[in-house]
């Protein structure tokens, strides 16, 4: 579990009326990876985080946040 890194991909996707499939296609990953990231079960690489943020036209900090206190991986 990526317990320290949380994200608001679902919110940004809903705001832009974008499906998981479309986001996955635009950042070049599988839909399963987007699902895993949205559920905070997988922490994406820095490169993928930047790609996702760029799709939404936001900074990485607006899409992903690091929360102290969780179990470090």
């Amino acid at each position, binding site marked *: 579990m990526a317990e320290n890194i949380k994200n608001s991909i679902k919110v940004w996707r809903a705001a832009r009326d974008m499906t998981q499939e479309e986001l996955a296609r635009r950042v*070049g*990953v*599988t839909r399963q*990876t987007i699902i*895993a990231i949205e559920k905070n079960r997988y922490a994406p690489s820095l490169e993928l985080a930047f790609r996702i943020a760029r799709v939404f036209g936001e900074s990485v900090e607006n899409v992903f946040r690091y929360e102290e206190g969780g179990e470090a991986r």
Partner: protein
Amino acid sequence: MTLHSAGVVVNLRRAKILVTSFVCATVAVGATSGNMYLALAGIVIGALFMALVRRRSGEVHTDERVDALGGRAARATFVIMSVFLGLLSLFFIFIGRNTGDGGIEALGTVFCYIVCLNCAVYSITFKYFDREHGGEY
């Protein structure tokens, strides 16, 4: 998920089912008629067709998460198989020595060498990739 070819949209999942059915049917016919070449041809044609369909579909099949999972699965497989083969080799060597069966003891020795080779290959590839990704020694 879809493949656009000559104006026809082919679903990749449907193609997988079709190819699997074709391969199963060919292997079944080849096995029942005793024709090994027919079964082999079916498998090869099926594999080639699926490779072609996947390439043309443009769908993403692998990404960093799949790579990470593959790495973890490979490491778990390495540990499990090394321990299993190591214990099996010890068992065969002891059984072979106690019963005086040289064949079983030799089999245990071969397993033991395979485990050593496995560990050596793992160490070499690990160091190679470590260096590729910036590790210094």
